[in-house]
């Protein structure tokens, strides 16, 4: 706890620097990644990230320096090279895009690991820290590193804002963009370059192996919260920044921990949370709708019991025992009781001890459902030419769904029928 307070107080200027820096890197990667996500190129980011490793190593071997600008040039060159090769393979051979990505990713990464190992064994003292590129180590970044990376990040954000509407169009409908004469090739080039650069600076914080997560996960989570592109990108950036913050925190509190995995844990937490809890699109919201539907079906089925008994005995208002109700329909006793209590809270049924009766309000509701059931049976019989003994099960389900508007359409199309295919009367609510 003290660690957290000390970290949050930002009393150490280096903490401040690194934290803000990694937050910018996280936000940049999330913003750029939103477009990769929407263009269904999620895996390309992974390939770029892995392909950057040999570039970083080569840049170090050739220059002998760990200056971030030098390393980024190397990273940029092999990152772009991987894109060109992926594109070339999928264009000129029979191999599909996913195979091309898989091949390029592993070949580049393997080569990168080879170079990294040989650098580490060369005895060059300056090399210490290069292995941080694998899993990231935010706290080991110098102020100068952070300055360079965050400046690049900010430039990338500005470029994206500049081309925002064009990037939106080439993500949604590239053919249309070509037809209206937008320079699609050029725009794609810019977008690819931005992606390579975002990856190149992002790996400083999370490392090569987990960079794809920083690119794609924020957008995947953000998509659950909104239908607007601008809002989605904004939420993704917030997710990216939060995990950047979390990553640098871990880096200080537990110096032996690599940053990348923790950033990814934080991101996964946010994204899984979104998948579950987002309104409307989230799983929980969907379960809730399902649950409500089940309750509606149960309540309506219980009301129908009263109607069916009433119809047979020509008395809709008499009290009924649980046993009598259970006999009419295949319902489990617990279900029936649950249904009755739900209905009671809506004043559609009443009870005197163990005897239950339907109220006037409940009867109207029951009539409505029976009516929809029989209208639908009639419709299936007349329009779909189904035999009367084939229509019941279908109507059991559809009766809970039909809206008043469709009810009116049904009546009209069937010319206001009074009897269903089984010659039962189609009831209507008496005013």
């Amino acid at each position, binding site marked *: 706890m003290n660690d957290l307070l000390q970290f949050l107080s930002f009393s150490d200027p280096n903490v401040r620097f690194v934290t803000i820096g990694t937050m910018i890197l996280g936000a940049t990667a999330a913003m750029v990644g939103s477009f990769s996500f*929407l263009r*269904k190129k999620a895996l390309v980011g992974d390939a770029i990230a892995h392909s950057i490793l040999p570039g970083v190593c080569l840049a170090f071997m050739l220059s002998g320096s760990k200056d971030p600008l030098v390393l980024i040039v190397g990273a940029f060159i092999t990152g772009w090279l991987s894109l060109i090769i992926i594109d070339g393979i999928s264009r000129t051979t029979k191999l599909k895009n996913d195979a091309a990505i898989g091949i390029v990713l592993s070949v580049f990464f393997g080569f990168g690991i080879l170079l990294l190992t040989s650098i580490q064994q060369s005895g060059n003292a300056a090399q210490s820290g290069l292995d941080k590129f694998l899993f990231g180590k935010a706290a080991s970044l110098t102020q100068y590193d952070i300055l360079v990376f965050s400046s690049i990040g900010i430039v990338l954000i500005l470029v994206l804002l*500049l081309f925002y*509407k*064009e990037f*939106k*169009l080439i*993500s*949604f*409908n590239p*053919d*249309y*963009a*070509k*037809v*209206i*004469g*937008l*320079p699609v090739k050029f725009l794609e080039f810019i977008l690819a370059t931005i992606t390579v650069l975002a990856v190149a600076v992002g790996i400083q914080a999370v490392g090569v192996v987990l960079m794809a997560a920083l690119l794609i996960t924020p957008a995947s989570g953000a*998509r659950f919260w*909104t*239908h*607007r*592109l601008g809002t*989605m990108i904004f939420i993704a950036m917030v997710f990216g920044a939060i995990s950047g913050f979390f990553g640098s925190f871990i880096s200080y509190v537990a110096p032996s921990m690599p940053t990348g995995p923790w950033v990814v844990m934080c991101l996964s937490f946010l994204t899984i949370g979104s998948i579950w809890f987002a309104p409307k699109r989230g799983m929980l919201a969907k379960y809730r709708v399902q649950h409500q539907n089940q309750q509606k079906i149960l309540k309506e089925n219980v009301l129908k019991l009263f109607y069916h008994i009433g119809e047979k005995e020509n008395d809709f208002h008499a009290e009924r025992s649980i046993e009598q109700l259970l006999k009419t329909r295949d319902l489990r006793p617990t279900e029936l009781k649950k249904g009755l209590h739900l209905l009671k809270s809506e004043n559609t049924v009443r009870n005197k001890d163990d005897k239950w009766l339907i109220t006037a309000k409940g009867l109207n509701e029951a009539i409505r459902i029976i009516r929809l059931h029989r209208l639908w049976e009639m419709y299936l019989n007349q329009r779909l030419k189904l035999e009367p003994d084939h229509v019941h099960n279908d109507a059991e389900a559809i009766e809970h769904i039909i809206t008043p508007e469709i009810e009116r359409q049904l009546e009209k199309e069937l010319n206001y029928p009074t009897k269903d295919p089984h010659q039962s009367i189609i009831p209507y609510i008496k005013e």
Partner: protein
Amino acid sequence: MEVALETHNLTVSYNRRPVLWNIDFKIPVGQITGIIGPNGSGKTTLLKAIMGLVKPSSGYCKLFDQDLKQVRERISYVPQRESVDWDFPASVMDIVLMGRYKSSNLFKRINQSDRDIAVEALEKVNMLEFSNRQISQLSGGQQQRVFIARSLAQGADLYIMDEPFVGVDAATEEAILNLLTEMKNQGKTVIVVHHDLQTAKDYFDWIVLLNTRLVAVGPKDDIFREDLLQEAYGGKLNVLSKVGDLIKEKGFSVRERK
């Protein structure tokens, strides 16, 4: 006859196999023209070649007697509805405003007059009340109308539509047909790819009958003849398909020099 579209000896190949052989025809200005043919007859490919989306193996297209590049702003293209992912995070208005993007104003922001034009376009397709609706919540017919509104917002002279009547409801079909008539009355030219022979005669003034080669072109009354329809819908030419297969198999090109 003033010509809106001319294709000259147009041959287009996919993976070397020609899917259109030497297509050569002219379409007049101010008419509604249907490009008709069975499945796999190369209708969509023809549109893509006209719009510069696929490169022909030989031949060329001219629009208003000029290259596409020179008349781009006078041409509007409505791609097939299924060609995009409708789960994209955007509203109806966002999509229609894309019709106002131009290559000449890359950095210009969308302004109020662009919005007014988009609103007018939405009104014409009876979709104004849905302007804030997320596009993934639209029905197929509504999606089609959004695409047409985007195209209207461009304010073009020639409209090229790929299968706008596929999978749409009756209300959309009627809305599109009314629009086509209105466009014609304003002197616009409309070219529509269509696969349903039954309705083609009611919808169009001119017909291009296609089945990997041009079968016939002309005013509809000249084209709707038993022998021509039989020729277009009676299957592909056997030898032509075989030669196409050979070109692909042996790795040749459909022209000696490329």
